[in-house]
């Protein structure tokens, strides 16, 4: 039986890598990948706690809803990225610094 803290360690690593990606990447699609890493680490935590605590299935239910919201989020975010590309002809986030032109 693998202990809970190792799952938490993997999840912490995924989370901090996601934070690193969100903070340092310039490409909008790459920033989205960082957000997906963060959501995955949160899910891993939820499932791990649901396995090692007496709460039954609740943690897994939360993870299902997180997956649903992640799917909706990535669809809308990619639509925004495509619109950004059409307007500015780039997906570099530091060049998307105007509200209107």
């Amino acid at each position, binding site marked *: *039986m*693998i202990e809970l*803290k*190792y*799952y*938490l*360690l*993997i*999840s*912490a*690593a*995924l989370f*901090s*890598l*996601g*934070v*690193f990606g969100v*903070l*340092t*990447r*310039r*490409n909008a*699609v*790459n920033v*989205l*990948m*960082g957000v*997906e*890493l963060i959501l*995955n680490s949160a*899910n*891993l935590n939820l*499932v791990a706690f*649901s*396995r*090692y*605590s*007496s709460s*039954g*299935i609740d943690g*897994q*239910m939360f*993870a*299902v809803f997180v*997956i*649903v919201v*992640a*799917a*909706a*989020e*990535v*669809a*809308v975010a*990619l*639509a925004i*990225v*495509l*619109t950004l*590309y059409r307007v500015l002809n780039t997906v*570099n986030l530091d060049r998307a610094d105007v509200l209107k032109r």
Partner: protein
Amino acid sequence: MSVTDVVFILTAVVTVGSAVVVVVSRSLIYSVFSLLFTFFGVAVLYVFLGADFLAGAQVLIYVGGILVLLLFGVMLTHRLYNLNLTTERFQPIAGTLIAAAVFVSISLAAFKTKWKLVGDRELEPTTQQIGEAFLSSYLLPFEIASVLLLVALIGAAMLVRRRTDV
């Protein structure tokens, strides 16, 4: 060290290692494809945790849906004759410091806290339990999630349509 431990360590190394490639690699295509390995690794960890339904959902939704969408995003936002799909970094030092601080604080919290745990529980199939929970105590969140998906569908289609009538 049992076989389970070896498989767990291998899975952990693959998951975290490919996540490193996702955020460090200069090529966007490499990032997307190593994200594939990260998602599969998390699915294997779900199997370790006895969450069979979630492992299946992870493979179907993340690998089959979100990853393909991200690949579309990469392909549609670059001219295909210009296969130089690289990305730049900015503020690498500050980003590294913040990420390291986040990692250290979370792992310290994970290791120092005395978790109140139950012992080894029986592994049982979760699909039926999840289905029953969806239609009983989680009925309202379930309906809200379906409306959210509909709104996201319409919103995404509206955002990328060609504006001929405006």
